[in-house]
């Protein structure tokens, strides 16, 4: 990690401050200017200046006012060159933005269903979390120009197609919240699955996802699924330290050292989930997934896992959100409740849909091995290895093939 010039501002602190304030500034400027793209340009410029100067000069006492001042000064520069900015910039005369939190509107605009999923993700990271195009590109392993182009196109569509900057009406809200949650969940998965010891230097998308989920849960207290997603992310993160061994290899749930799990974080996340469930009595896919993870997280040992409860939760989840991948996970619970033979029967139905999904073959291999069908197990593991692109999963499968 780069040492800051005067040693007083670490990259981590810098990232946190930018994340907290860039979105607020963007929200204020979109409100003031009524132009999403122009506001976003000004925020990006201000954030760039901050990233250049804060490591040396220290973080100002009021970062928000500092960023606003820089954005306004830059806006006035632009004004001198472009006449159409005149009317908008006239509105920038107030000394600092109102303290009202407008970020919810910003999030709904960035995650509007009229934008593609990749555009929603890039825009949310950039506008709400204050990431640069280079940071987003590094996190998703795509060229920076691709990210920049996605953002430019998305901003153009927002302006030209008339994507509004407001909180959706009550009748659209559930569907629109779902869209936002899907974006955050995808971000989390991307960060969680690609995280390895070697990539610890890269921007941690998991942290951005948790931050976004926290923001959303606070801004939408009446939506239990927002709390559900936050609990889900926190439950996964609480067990992060046990996911990799000393050599950076992936460790399966059954073999993880549970003393490394953060018990306090698990308790808090479970409490959050229980509160949301009791207050609203509206179960949803994120609450149910979090409840399943909580069952694992609360078990003192792998053997003590309450598989019967997990199976019930999977049945509820499948009822609300049918998916072949969920059925695959359910089959693992079936194995522990009813034995490998029944689990294997349930898997066979999924072969056609999940033929290209590595975890399907890896799970099948485990069940076949339980049943003593070692040759078939080996073939299934080999197929899983062919299909997976994730280095940690590859290492795990190679190890298993060498042992059996």
């Amino acid at each position, binding site marked *: 990690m780069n040492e800051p010039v005067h040693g007083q501002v670490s990259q981590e602190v810098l990232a946190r401050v930018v994340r907290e304030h860039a979105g607020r500034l963007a929200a204020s400027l979109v409100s003031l200017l009524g132009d999403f793209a122009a506001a976003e340009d000004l925020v990006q410029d201000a954030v760039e200046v901050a990233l250049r100067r804060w490591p040396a000069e220290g973080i100002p006492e009021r970062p928000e006012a500092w960023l606003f001042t820089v954005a306004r000064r830059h806006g006035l520069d632009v004004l001198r060159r472009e006449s159409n900015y005149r009317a908008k910039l006239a509105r920038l005369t107030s000394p600092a933005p109102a303290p009202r939190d407008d970020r919810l509107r910003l999030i709904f605009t960035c995650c*509007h269903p*009229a934008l593609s999923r990749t555009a929603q993700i890039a825009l949310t990271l950039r506008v709400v979390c204050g990431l640069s195009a280079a940071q987003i590109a590094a996190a998703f392993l795509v060229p920076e120009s691709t990210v920049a182009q996605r953002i430019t196109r998305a901003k153009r569509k927002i302006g*030209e*197609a*008339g*994507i*509004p900057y*407001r909180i*959706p*009406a009550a009748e*659209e809200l559930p569907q629109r919240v779902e869209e936002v949650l899907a974006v955050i969940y995808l971000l989390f998965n991307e960060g969680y699955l690609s995280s390895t010891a070697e990539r610890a230097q890269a921007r941690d998308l998991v942290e951005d996802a948790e931050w976004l989920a926290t923001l959303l849960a606070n801004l939408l207290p009446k939506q239990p699924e927002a709390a559900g997603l936050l609990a889900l992310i926190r439950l996964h993160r609480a067990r992060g330290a046990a996911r990799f061994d000393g050599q950076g290899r992936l460790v399966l749930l059954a073999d993880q050292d549970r003393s490394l799990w953060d018990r306090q974080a698990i308790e808090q996340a479970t409490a959050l989930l229980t509160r949301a469930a009791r207050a609203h009595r509206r179960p949803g896919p994120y609450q149910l997934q979090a409840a399943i993870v909580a069952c694992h997280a609360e078990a003192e040992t792998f053997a003590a896992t309450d598989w019967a409860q997990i199976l019930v939760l999977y049945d509820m989840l499948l009822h609300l959100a049918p998916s072949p991948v969920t059925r695959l996970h359910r089959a693992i619970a079936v194995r522990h409740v009813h034995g490998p033979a029944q689990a294997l029967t349930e898997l066979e139905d999924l072969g056609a849909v999940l033929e290209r999904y590595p975890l399907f073959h890896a799970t099948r291999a485990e069940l076949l091995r339980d049943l003593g069908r070692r040759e078939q197990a080996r073939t299934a593991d080999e197929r899983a290895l062919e299909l997976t692109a994730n280095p940690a999963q590859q290492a795990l499968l190679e190890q298993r093939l060498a042992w059996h």
Partner: protein
Amino acid sequence: MFIETEQFAAQLEAMDELEQQAAYAAVAQWFADHAGKITHHTHLAPVHTATTVRLGQGEPVITDGPFVEGKEVVSGFAEVEVADLDEALKIARSWPACPIVEIRPAS
């Protein structure tokens, strides 16, 4: 823009007269419900009536049929005056006929 599919055309074809009348009545009702927002609308004749003119490379080339042969065809359009995309989406959601509606800004 209203987009018909082969399946939708077949369904309409298969309806008896009463059902067809009900379908047309639903469309008429939709236009009445949103009359305040609709500034103009046009229903296009079926694709087999289309003629395409290709310009730009020497003499214009005139061909029989639509410019894209497809299972999905634009069958008409309505112009609506709305504040933003969400308002347009709300109107589009209640469209009672063909299964696809494309929304585009117009100037």
